[in-house]
């Protein structure tokens, strides 16, 4: 490691150029990774962050909450068994700020006020604590549209008005920001267009053990991750961008391997001399691997710092979401693949004949 570092410092101009290229590549990888997660979150964060482990849905709904309906008695049965369960309805609509005409997309999440699936507010009060008849908790992205606490927003299709009781953080569903309303408000919303409507929940969110004994009765218990994957466009978007990210990780790492291999080719005589004076292949391989490790680690750390700085300066509407564990996973994979790609140089070194040391010619 010591000698690898000395070589890098000695040839700093050359290595700075290599580092620059790798930092840019790695930055692109992390940035795309953040966008991939951000886009993923824009589809699913309201479900991902929900304090539930699984959902009971209609088995003909193909695990999609919005087209499912579960008889209310199931909820009573679950609660009678002491299981934490709460009804959930999801409906995509749009709202209008009081006194404005601009339509804003929204996905209503109808929940029982004060239930475990109602999110914590970052501003204002929860649904239960609100004195309004029809309170709503909005994702804080709505603030960018000029909505403030206490404002009234209207559902133009039904004419129902909601009072903004609070704001919640990072709650998106199907690329739209979520608004949490009570089951009563949701029922009124539905009855405005269908007076005969009686509330039947789309799904029941459950906390804890997934074995409830409802399978086979037209219902199925679906784990949260499965529900997320079934949200329209989630899998297609997520897979595409994830694939791009990993292809870029591999390309960046292989570029390091190729640079390293070219440098090794230029140092054939030097390695020959080192072998002639008794240096072992393992020692030389150690130097080459250390060099790649230092270069890739440095590139990874700088690009991580760049990405997180960039993320902090990005517009809030940008769907960028990079969690430290994800960034570390991508970075660690990049470093690991870089080291693996340096094996090409190691093989080359093991084949260098120390006889190259004998005879004339400078390095």
């Amino acid at each position, binding site marked *: 490691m010591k000698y690898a570092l000395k*070589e890098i410092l000695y040839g700093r101009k050359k290595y700075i150029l290599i580092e620059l290229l790798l930092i840019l590549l790695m930055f692109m990888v992390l940035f795309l990774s953040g966008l991939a997660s951000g886009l993923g979150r824009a589809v699913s964060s309201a479900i991902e962050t929900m304090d539930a482990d699984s959902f009971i849905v209609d088995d003909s709904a193909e695990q999609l909450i919005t087209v499912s309906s579960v008889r209310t008695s199931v909820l009573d049965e679950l609660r009678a068994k002491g299981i934490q369960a709460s009804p959930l309805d999801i409906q995509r609509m749009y709202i209008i700020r009081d006194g404005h005409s601009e339509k804003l997309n929204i996905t209503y999440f109808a929940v029982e006020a004060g239930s475990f699936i109602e999110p914590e507010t970052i501003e204002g009060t929860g649904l239960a604590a609100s004195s309004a008849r029809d309170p709503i908790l909005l994702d804080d992205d709505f603030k960018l549209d000029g909505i403030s606490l206490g404002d009234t927003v209207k559902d133009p299709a039904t004419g129902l008005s909601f009072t903004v009781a609070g704001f919640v953080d990072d709650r998106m569903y199907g690329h739209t920001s979520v608004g949490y309303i009570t089951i009563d408000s949701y029922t009124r919303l539905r009855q405005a267009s269908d007076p005969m409507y009686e509330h039947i929940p789309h799904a029941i969110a459950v906390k804890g053990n997934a074995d409830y004994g409802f399978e086979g009765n037209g219902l199925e218990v679906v784990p949260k991750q499965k529900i997320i994957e079934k949200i329209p466009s989630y899998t297609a978007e997520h897979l595409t961008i994830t694939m791009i990210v990993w292809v870029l990780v591999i390309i960046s790492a292989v570029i390091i391997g190729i640079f390293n291999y070219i440098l090794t080719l230029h140092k054939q005589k*030097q390695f020959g001399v080192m072998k002639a004076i008794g*240096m072992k292949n393992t020692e030389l391989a150690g130097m080459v691997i250390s060099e790649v490790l230092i270069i890739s680690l440095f590139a990874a750390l700088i690009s991580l710092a760049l990405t997180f700085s960039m993320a902090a300066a990005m517009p809030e509407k940008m769907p960028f979401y990079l969690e430290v564990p994800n960034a570390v996973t991508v970075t660690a994979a990049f470093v690991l693949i870089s080291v693996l790609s340096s094996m090409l140089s190691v093989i080359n070194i093991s084949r260098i004949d120390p*006889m190259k040391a004998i005879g*004339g010619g400078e390095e």
Partner: protein
Amino acid sequence: MSDKLLELKDICKSYRDGSGKRVILDKVSLTVGRGEFAAIVGPSGSGKSTFLSVAGLLLTPDSGNVLIGGKDVTDASKSERTMIRRRQLGFIFQSHNLVPYLTTADQLAIVQEKSMREKVKIRELLSELEIDDCRDKFPSMMSGGEKQRTAIARAFINDPDVILADEPTASLDAERGRLAVEMIRNEVRKRNKAAVMVTHDTRVLDLVDVVYRIDGGRLIPEAKSGEI
């Protein structure tokens, strides 16, 4: 340990030359004892480098035996040969062949065996070879003579029994070349080592104990100490 530090017995080595075979060494034998400095001269292509490569365990002979410190190492494995080269042989090359990104001290430290750190102090060795002021210099910052002395110091760092020098004066002027050979001779005398030098430079032959000429694949004694 045997007083015969380097022995080559009936060494044959040939290379493929088109469809035929070109004999480079034909039953060559040489023994160099403790405190002895031998030089091998001969025209270009006569097999001097091949001879040195066989003696330095870089090449395996077609037949014959190589003994170092009395031990037959002809059939030693690749890794054993590497260790012998590191611990028992000191190589000095035609050009200095120093690692460009290492200072003089690091050039020595990178090959020094841990067990030798107490016995051979880098600072003392550099002082002995009068390059102590080059300790923290890179090869690009040194003169040709200083580089060659650093290469000599590298060959001495593990206190080897046998020193092998491949045209050590080739890249130096007459004065510096002579100084380099004197350093090898001093090491041989002072620490009772054996040395073999392949050279074209007849001006330094008075510094060795015995001179051999290699020609037609044969090693012929040319002169002994006092006759040179």
